[in-house]
């Protein structure tokens, strides 16, 4: 083979290898979870209303059987995202629509409402500071931001609910609980949040799958100046 031929073959192989590397990075490594921006929705300093929902099975995407959070964007559409950009030093009014069922907690500490304004939450309009998961429907999930000391138990719907939702996004026509809390964001930074109730069904101990995958039961509060 001539000099030019050998050079062409080598360059061709290099291009193929580089293409494979780019394909792997773009296709499998870069995050697929979009960031939902709430910083421009309200006037500066005004409270941000954040509405999210938890569903037992999301029903679409790469893992349709997984439990997941969704968030309502400023336009009012439900988005499958757990990365939310919010302004710093601002009151967040968080409404969580809980469409999943619950169970007794392994650690009753997670039944405690912590870090919210007044140290309370409302469950279907009634204030609670501590929920006994051994009574009623139990707790399905928590919404917890460890670095801010925030944790809210999300009380589950009844196991025998007549109209459970099995396909996200769920509408309020389905059985659900509404949990509301408020808190004030700190200075700029990225604050991870996480559900602390092992709810990865089908995974040993319940901590795999959706519990350890960004976009399902954990995400980031991206607080910007």
């Amino acid at each position: 083979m001539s000099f030019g031929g050998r050079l062409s073959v080598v360059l061709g192989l290099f291009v193929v290898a580089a293409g494979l590397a780019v394909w792997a990075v773009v296709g499998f490594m870069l995050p697929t979870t979009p960031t939902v921006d709430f910083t421009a929705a309200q006037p500066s300093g005004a409270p941000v209303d954040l509405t999210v929902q938890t569903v037992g099975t999301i029903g679409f995407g790469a893992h349709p059987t997984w439990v997941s959070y969704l968030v309502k964007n400023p336009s009012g559409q439900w988005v499958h995202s757990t990365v939310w950009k919010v302004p710093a030093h601002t009151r967040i009014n968080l409404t969580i629509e809980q469409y999943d069922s619950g169970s007794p907690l392994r650690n009753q500490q997670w039944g405690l409402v912590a870090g919210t304004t007044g140290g309370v939450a409302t469950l279907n309009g009634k204030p609670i500071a501590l929920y006994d998961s051994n009574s009623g429907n139990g707790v399905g999930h928590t919404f917890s931001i460890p670095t801010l000391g925030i944790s809210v138990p999300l009380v589950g719907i009844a196991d025998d609910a007549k109209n459970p939702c099995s396909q996200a996004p769920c509408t309020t026509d389905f059985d659900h609980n509404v949990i509301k809390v408020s808190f004030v964001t700190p200075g700029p930074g990225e604050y991870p949040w996480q559900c602390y109730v092992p709810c990865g069904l089908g995974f040993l101990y319940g901590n795999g799958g959706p519990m350890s995958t960004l976009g399902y039961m954990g995400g980031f509060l991206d607080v910007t100046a």
Partner: protein
Amino acid sequence: MTVTAERETEVVYPDPTPPVLGGFQGLPQRPGWLSQHLGTAAIGAVLGYLLGHWLGNVVASGYTNIADSGVNAVAITGGLLLGVFGWLLGIGALNYPLAKMVGLELRPDYESTSWTRYLRYTVDHKVVGLQYVIGVLAFLFTGGLLAMGIRTELLSPSSHLFGPGTYIAIVSEHGTIMMMMATSVIVGPLGNWLVPLMIGARRTAFPRVEAFSFWIFTAGYLVILSALFYGGFPTGWTGYAPLQTQAGGGMMSYLVGFAVIGLGMMAAGFNLAVTIINYRAPGMTWSRIPIFVWSILATCALLTLATPTLVAAGFFGILDHTAQTAFFVTEHGGSSFLWENLFWFFGHPEVYIMALPGFGIVFEILPVFTRKPLFAYKVAAAGMVGVALLSFFVWQHHLFQSGINPDMRPLFMLTTELISIPTGFIYLVGLGTLYKAKIKFEVPMLFALALFFNFLIGGITGVFLSDVPVNVTVHGSFFVLAHFHYTIMGGLIFAFFGGLYYWLPKMTGKTMNKKLGQIHFWIMFIFFNLTFFPMFLIGLLGQPRRVFEYAQNLQALNDFSSVSAFILGASFLVFVANFVWSIFIKPTPAPANPWDSLGLEWQTPTPVPYYNFERIPVVLSDPYHYSEENAPAVADLGEEGVLVAAGASSPASVAEDPRPPAQ
């Protein structure tokens, strides 16, 4: 350096039986396009994967845990295992046993000079060696690209390129690929290529096993890489339970890949160990075998004895995921400690699987470029054997922080410190050889010298880490990460490149560009240290491994390390450019013995004939008597004369040292 002399001991050997390979006798010769090669291996792997995955779905898709999780470990495992089987079937690795099962024989192998032999299942140890060169370089560059991803992510403590799960998947993939590559990086390419030549043999003991080890190694690479497509695995390269038992589909790639590569490691180690023990040329006594061969023998002992533990542990893990056994599930009667102990019973000897052949390489290089005998040859050999033996008694120092019985800590601290003694012997052998030497700073020598600098830092920090108080303090931090990169990359990878620059002229018949080699070395050496030394500080300041966020005050050090890492990565591109340019694009023929070495491997023509030696040499002394007056002859090469060191009065020394040929 050979002089013609009458051969005193005439040893006549029958013509070697040619190793067999290829089509089946008694069946029609298939056309060339139907022959087995890399393409048929790929087709076999794809078909095998599809079949295995389908079977797994048929068997297990109705299981509750699989329906709930959406992860069918049975289908993934079935696909990967049958994919590996299809790969081996497609390349022809199973032809021989299959032929024997149906009472057929294979056609004799032929001496092919076509480049396509590098894409086939071949029993020529020199072809397998070069296949391994390309294979381990593919491993190295894949792992290196992932390392670039890690350092890119760590440029900022809070702005992220990847998600946290993807980051740990990249870290895990990087670690696993690099460690798997490192187990074979010298035994595979240089061990297979050089050992038969160095000991005066025409082939290895089990050529098919040798070829099998390479092709299953490549299958293992693909299996481990496939983890990325299943979402990766979160455990790092150590695969610790209970995290392992909770992980998703990527974990199956890790377990199957480790087990598959483990089989290849055992095959490679077994073949070379038997070759060294049984295939030495007449006169090649234990005190005359090249020190590189000693290092490979010690390594092969470790590969053969330690790796079965890993393979067994891998299969236990596979069963936990697929058949719902509970080997590593504490609540169900198993123990996550079982994995940790089995893993490190393999894993710590593996550290020496990586270190020993690196020293073997530099001990071959030092005498040649100092023109001095290897200092304390027997101490070096004893040190290697000592390290190999002691390496089985230190594994629990990895578990100091895991809740083991505290009373066990001093014992394993002691054994770990003990291993620094034979390691120190080995290190001092190198320094003794360099003492008062007139050094020729050729590219291989630069890499050999760099090993001593890097390994000193890696070794001393290793002694710190063996002490329980320090270990407890810096466990899981970047300090540990810096330590093992200094020993493995600073030792093994520098030795590997030194070995490549040293032996590639013989292996390929082409001369590597010296200027590009020097540029490669200096960039790699400087930026290796600038990348990893700051990590000691980063670790002492508290940054944990495997976490994609870190304290704001560590950003400057991390950025310095990251930028250095990018330049370090670029240094490998210089090597690739040199390799491709010098070997493929504009090749310059290399002389048969460009470094004036006394090693037997250099006394053959270039390219080395199919059967290595026209006549088996008779070995008369070890090959390190450089610049010695009255040095004994090294070997009787038959019609080509007697090999002696320059300046020695060789014919007399042949007469003084008549040794009977070994059987």
